[in-house]
C-alpha cells in the first residue's frame, strides 16, 4: 500500500508481513515500513528538540512565554504526515491549537521560524513578532491563525467545512484541541453543525486528551465518560485511541481521514496523550516524569526491532540539538519589529495609522 504524504512525497507505508502478522525483520511488531518509521522518528525528535529549545529560550529570557505540545508527537507527527497540504479548498484546512508544533513540523515547517516567533522578531513569518510561541499561521498551507482563545477553532472550522462540502473534491477540515476545552459550548456547536441532517460536513474533530486543564484535572470536572462518546449522540463515527503509540495513531488517523475524505462526513477522534512540560511557562515548563514519554516508548521499540540503534538515535538528537541551538543563536541577532508598525494590517494590505 502506498500513501501520498505531505503534499506529494510518496512513501511506501506498510511492510509485507508474514503469516503470523510479523514483519520480515523478525521480532519487531511494527506494521509500518522502516523508512516511514525512521521518518516519523526524525520528525518527532526534531519537534521535541525544538520545543525543548523554545523552553530554554523562555528560561533564558529570550521569549516572554512558552506553550507547546511536547508529549503529543506520536499522534501529531502521523497527523501532519497525512494532511493534504496546500492552499485553497482542494486541500485540508487546519484549525489548530497551540500544542500543534509536531503537526506543523511534519508539514515541513522550518524550525528557525518557530524560534523567531518565540523571540518575537520581525522575521517571525507567522505573526511578525505579535503572537506567542506555537501560534502558527500560514495561508499557503491553509493553517488559519492559531488563537489562544480556547475552543474557538471548533466554530471557525465549521465554516471552512461548509465551503469544502460545497466545493467537492477531497479536501477536508481538521480541527484539534485539548480535553478541558471540550467543556466550552463551541465544542458542542461543532458537533451540532457538522451533523445537520443532509448537510453533514467533511470535518475531522480531534481531541488530544492529556487529562489536564492547566492545573485542574479532568477527574474533578468531568463526569462524562470518553469524550469521543459525545459524538455518538449525533450519529458520528468516533474512536478513542492511545495517542502515545505511533502506529495506533497513524492507522486511526488514516481511517478517520479516509472516512472524512471519501464519505464527506464528520469523525470525532480522541487521542489519549501526555503533557510532558506542564501547561506552559506559567506553570514552570519543567519535565514531568510521571507521564509516558511517547518518544522514549517509540525509541525503545525502534531499538528492539533493529530499525534504529541507540547510537544512531543519539546522533540524530545531538545533530538536531546542535542545529537548532545554532539557529536560536542566529535568531537572537535578528531585529525586533519597528514600533511604528503597530497599526499595520489592521485591515488587509493597510500599513500605518489609518484614522
Amino acid at each position, binding site marked *: 500500500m502506498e500513501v501520498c504524504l505531505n503534499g506529494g512525497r510518496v512513501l511506501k507505508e506498510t511492510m509485507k508481513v508474514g503469516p503470523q502478522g510479523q514483519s520480515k525483520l523478525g521480532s519487531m511488531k511494527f506494521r509500518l515500513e522502516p523508512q516511514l518509521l525512521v521518518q516519523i522518528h526524525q520528525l518527532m525528535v526534531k519537534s521535541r528538540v525544538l520545543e525543548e529549545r523554545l523552553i530554554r529560550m523562555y528560561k533564558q529570557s529570550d521569549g516572554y512565554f512558552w506553550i507547546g505540545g511536547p508529549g503529543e508527537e506520536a499522534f501529531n507527527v502521523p497527523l501532519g504526515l497525512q494532511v493534504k497540504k496546500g492552499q485553497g479548498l482542494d486541500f485540508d484546512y487546519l484549525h489548530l491549537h497551540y500544542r500543534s508544533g509536531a503537526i506543523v513540523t511534519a508539514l515541513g515547517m522550518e524550525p528557525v521560524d518557530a524560534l523567531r516567533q518565540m523571540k518575537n522578531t520581525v522575521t517571525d513569518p*507567522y505573526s*511578525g513578532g505579535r503572537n506567542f510561541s506555537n501560534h502558527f*499561521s*500560514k*495561508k499557503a498551507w491553509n493553517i488559519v491563525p492559531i488563537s489562544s482563545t480556547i475552543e474557538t477553532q471548533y466554530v*471557525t472550522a465549521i*465554516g471552512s467545512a461548509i465551503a469544502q462540502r460545497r466545493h467537492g473534491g477531497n479536501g477536508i477540515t481538521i480541527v484539534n484541541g485539548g480535553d478541558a476545552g471540550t467543556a466550552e459550548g463551541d465544542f458542542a*456547536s461543532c458537533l*451540532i453543525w457538522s451533523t445537520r441532517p443532509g448537510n453533514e460536513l467533511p470535518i475531522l474533530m480531534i481531541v488530544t486528551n492529556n487529562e489536564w486543564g492547566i492545573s485542574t484535572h479532568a477527574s474533578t470536572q468531568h463526569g462524562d465518560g470518553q469524550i469521543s462518546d459525545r459524538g455518538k449522540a449525533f450519529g458520528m463515527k468516533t474512536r478513542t485511541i492511545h495517542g502515545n503509540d505511533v502506529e495506533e495513531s497513524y492507522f486511526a488517523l488514516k481511517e478517520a481521514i479516509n472516512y472524512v475524505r471519501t464519505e464527506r462526513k464528520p469523525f470525532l477522534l480522541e487521542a489519549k496523550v501526555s503533557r510532558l512540560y506542564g501547561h506552559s511557562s506559567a506553570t514552570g515548563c519543567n519535565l514531568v516524569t510521571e507521564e509516558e514519554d511517547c518518544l522514549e516508548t517509540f525509541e525503545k521499540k525502534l531499538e528492539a526491532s533493529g530499525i534504529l540503534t541507540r547510537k544512531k538515535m543519539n546522533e540524530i538528537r545531538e545533530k538536531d540539538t546542535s542545529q537548532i541551538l545554532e539557529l536560536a543563536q542566529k535568531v537572537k541577532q535578528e531585529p525586533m519589529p519597528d514600533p511604528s508598525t503597530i497599526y499595520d494590517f489592521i485591515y*488587509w494590505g493597510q500599513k500605518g495609522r489609518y484614522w
Partner: protein
Amino acid sequence: MTLSIGVRRVGIGKMATLVQAIRMALHYGETHLGVKDIFGEDVGPPLGGVFTATQGLKTSWNSPLDERGIVGAAIGLGLSGDRCVAEVQFCDYIYNTIDLLKLGGMQSWASHGDWNLPITVMTPVGSGIRGSIYHSHSFDATMTHIPGWKIVMPSNPLDAYGLMIACLKEPNPTMYLKPKALMRIRGQEQIPGEPPLTPEGEKLLKEMIDAPLADRSRWRPQWPSGLTDYTVELGVAKTVHEGEQITVVSYGRTLPLCAQAASQLQKEGVSVEVIDLRTLWPYDWEHLSASIEKTRRVLFVNEDTEVTNFGEHLIRRTIEDLFYVLEARPRLLAGAFIPGVGLADPLEMASTPQIGSIIQAIREVVSEQA
C-alpha cells in the same frame, strides 16, 4: 422592465423600504458579487428573517439557534475564501460572540497581513419597536471597541442598499447594523433599479419581492432586473441638512430625528447642519471636522448607552483637534446608562433620545455663550 440608473430625489412614500433595500442589495450580492451563503436563525425560507431582510434569496439558509456557531462559521467561510453574510437575529444576542468578533477582527493583523476575512455580519439594533429589555439594545458602542472591522449603520433605504454593496465588496470583515425602527421607512431617493416611483410602483415592488403572508411554499420573488452595484463608499459621511450654527452628528434611528429637528428649528431661525456618519468605523473625520470648524459647535447623537459611548470618542477627537475653534462645549446626547430599555411607552421614550430631547440639546448648545 427598464429602469433608470442613478439617484433621483422625489416625494416620500413611493420607494422601497429600508428592509427591501437590504434584501435587493443581498440579491445583487449573491448574483453579482460572489456571495455564497446568507445564513442565521430563521434567515432562510419560509420566514426569510424576522424583519424579512432575507426573503426570497437563493443562498439563504437556516442555521441552528447558535450565535457563536453563526459567527464562527462566518469566520471559517471567510478564511476559506467564500464570501458570506451572517445574521444574528437581534444584537441583544450577539454579546456572547464578542470574543469571536475580536478574533475575526484580528485575522489580518495577527497573521501580519497574510490572511483576510471577507465577511459581513448583520444584526438589528436599537429601540423604537417597543422591543422590551432584550430586543432594544444598541451595539455601536461595543462594536466600535473592536478593531479590524468596518462598521456601518444606514438611516435610509438608498444608503442601506449602497452600504450593503460596499460591505459585499470589502476584503475585510464588515458589521452591518440595521436600525430596526427604520426597517419599514421609505426613502426620498430612488434606489437604482427599483420600479418606477409611483403608488403603483410601490405596490408592484411589494408584489415582486415580499413573500405572501399565507402559504409561501411555492412563492418565488421577481427581482427588479435593473439593480446595480450602486455603492456608498465606506468611511464617507453625508451632510443631510446644511446649516451654520451647530453641527449635529448622528446615524441610524436618531438620524431622521436630528434632520426633523433641524427642519423644525430652521423655522425659528436656528441653522443646524446634520451629518449622517453612515460608516461608524473608520469614520469620516475630514467631513466632520470641516463642518465643526464651520459651525464651531457640535452635538453627537446616538441611542447606545451614554457611558463609554462612541460619541465620547468623537468628543475626545473634537477636543484634541478642534478645541480652539469651539465656541461651546461639545455635547453628547445618548441613551440612558441603564441595563435595558423598559417596555412601557414612558420608559422607552425616556431611555433613548427622542425628537424633544434632541431639539432641547440643540437649543442648549446653540445658546451657550462663547
